[in-house]
């Protein structure tokens, strides 16, 4: 019944199957939205955050999806600025993933502040010294850029494109896309850095403090580095999942390989930088504050296993898989590397967000633990449901993958 809206020359599942699938995700999203309304009504006492854990699951999810969404701006940079031609096949999809990640982050941020109706104060009363101010401005502007990048794709829907105004608009947007890609890269670069800087400037929190690279805390650069090395792996992973679900090849394998290879080499660089950072932190920053490396870890939840899993299992191993061609060309190894790298960056954001606050700063204080409440899990789950809905709609009705028709010729 929706055949007229589906791009020409491609195969999609029946309307019944599609709307059942959508209903499933709408149900999950509805449950999550109900939880969000409960939080807005009753307040943040519905979470397990407290005066020790002012940051919790939502900020971890926020930082996580923003890092994973870096595949959008970095792929845009590689496609439109560096002119890596193989990436044209998946740039549309990368933009959609970025759009989902950034819009989710903005929605969760709105929920995470105690006074959502004052959210606009961030623009109206900006403290130019606060890294969070830079985050607020850059994330909003970059979300705008992502929307601008997403709009022409929507306009290219078969029905909408028939409208002359939409047709012209879409054409002109495409002409200007390189400019938006460059602006997006600039904005995203800064806000990824500011997110890292947020923690690096907390000089009274030795777990996170990393100031000293000229005027910047070097977490600024570590966050950028980790985002551009793992964001593309998430783009590759979601593309592979979509191919698995739809049982179609949507982008040439070469496109995935090229992006994975670039991510792999960047991940190598990031792992080295992160190791140097950890070493300097343990041998210089902590001793200057009367602390030892061992004191930064505690028990199971905040144990010493974290840096080994983060840097070793989720850093070194995927980096090696991605730079070794034989492994990269194998779908299973590639998927494993992408899962590990994506997990690693989320783990890194969790450590910076939660462990920074769990670690006792007073010598006479103790470690506290934090586990998100069901309300926090539910609203975090909303990101997945929202993402599934946007991806499903976009895949069904928009010409997201320019090579889909060539890669999936109709059966004779």
């Amino acid at each position, binding site marked *: 019944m929706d055949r007229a809206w589906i791009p020409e020359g491609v195969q999609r599942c029946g309307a019944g199957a599609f709307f059942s699938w959508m209903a499933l995700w709408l149900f999950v999203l509805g449950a999550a939205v109900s939880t969000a309304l409960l939080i807005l009504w009753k*307040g*943040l*006492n519905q979470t397990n*955050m*407290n*005066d*020790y854990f*002012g*940051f919790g699951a939502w900020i971890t999810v926020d930082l996580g999806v923003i890092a994973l969404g870096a595949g959008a701006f970095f792929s845009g940079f590689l496609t439109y600025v560096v002119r890596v031609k193989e990436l044209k096949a998946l740039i549309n999809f990368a933009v959609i993933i970025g759009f989902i990640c950034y819009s989710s982050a903005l929605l969760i941020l709105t929920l*995470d*502040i*105690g*006074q959502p109706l*004052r*959210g606009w*104060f*961030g623009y*109206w*009363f*900006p*403290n130019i*010294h*606060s*890294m*969070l*101010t830079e*985050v*607020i401005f850059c994330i909003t502007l970059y979300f705008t850029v992502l929307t601008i990048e997403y709009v022409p794709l929507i306009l290219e829907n078969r029905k909408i494109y028939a409208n002359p105004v939409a047709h012209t608009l879409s054409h002109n947007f495409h002409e200007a896309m390189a400019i938006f890609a460059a602006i997006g890269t600039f904005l995203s670069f800064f806000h990824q850095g500011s997110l890292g800087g*947020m923690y690096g*400037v*907390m*000089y*009274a*929190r*030795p777990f996170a403090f990393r*100031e000293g690279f000229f005027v910047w805390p070097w977490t600024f650069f570590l966050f950028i580095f980790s985002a551009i090395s793992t964001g593309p792996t998430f783009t590759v992973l979601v593309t592979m999942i979509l191919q698995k679900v739809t049982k179609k090849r949507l982008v040439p394998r070469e496109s995935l390989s090229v992006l994975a290879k670039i991510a792999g080499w960047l991940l190598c660089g990031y792992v080295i930088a992160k190791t140097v950072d950890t070493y300097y932190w343990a041998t210089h920053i902590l*001793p*200057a*504050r*009367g*602390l*030892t490396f061992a004191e930064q870890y505690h028990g199971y939840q905040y144990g010493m296993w974290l840096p080994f899993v983060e840097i070793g299992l989720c850093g070194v191993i995927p980096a090696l898989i991605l730079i070794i061609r034989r492994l990269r060309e194998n779908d299973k190894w590639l998927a494993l590397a992408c899962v590990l790298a994506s997990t690693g960056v989320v783990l890194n954001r969790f450590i910076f967000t939660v462990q*920074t*606050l769990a670690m006792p*700063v*007073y*010598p*006479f*204080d*103790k470690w*506290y633990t934090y586990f998100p409440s069901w309300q926090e899990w539910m609203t975090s789950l909303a990101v997945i449901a929202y993402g599934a809905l946007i991806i499903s709609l976009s895949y069904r009705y928009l010409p997201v993958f320019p090579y889909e028709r060539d890669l999936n010729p109709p059966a004779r």
Partner: protein
Amino acid sequence: MSEHHEVASKEKYGMVIDLDKCTGCGTCTVACLSENNHYVREDESDKLHSVTWMKVYKVTNGAPFPNTKVAFIPRPCMHCDHHTPCVSVCPVMATDYNPLTGIVSQIYTRCIGCRYCVGACPYHARYFNWWDPVWPEGMHKLLNPDMSPRMRGVVEKCSFCNHRQQKAKDKAYVEGRKELKDGEYVTACAEACPTGAITFGNMKDPESAVAKLIKSPGAFRLLEKLGTEPKVYYLSSESWIRELADNALGRKRTGGLA
């Protein structure tokens, strides 16, 4: 990190708490609650969600009986003097350092409740309002009209009873004075302390009690290694308390929360 708040001012307010005199009675906490219109929840046992601007930590030296020693550390906001951690991170300038008095203030109607300041403060001196403030029937008649209650969803903290300074200044103005005398502006906790353990005043006035006390041999501050330069000083003749107040690399950590 070179930001200093020094201006040509004759005032810089600070507090000295003599731990050898403190009995841990909690009067300072109650006085603070009452003075600053804190609401009290029906069940206050969850201290990670309760608002206590003046919190009293009970610490021990960790030694087994009969050598066990106990001390109480009252902890208001430290009103950090150097690159104040909470002020520099607040995205909306809801918290501010007054260079004329050294007092770190909080604008409740400006705060968006992002809790970045809570994360940045190493002293756990900042509190988020997790619930709407509710007082028992009729108790609103006892609220302090000089202090605004705080709404749900904002961060708050000790203000060194800043409204008392305003009152004292008004009085001095009426009397034709520009400067306050020592003891004319004191916080509620200092006024209420039954053992006189808390002294409050102008640290820039060399004749003030605080200015003299901070030069005492047993004076120290919490977490001095972090470099926040708190304006709350402590006094104690007990070396284990002074050692417990700051991180010391390689020290065998025996003392802690009781």
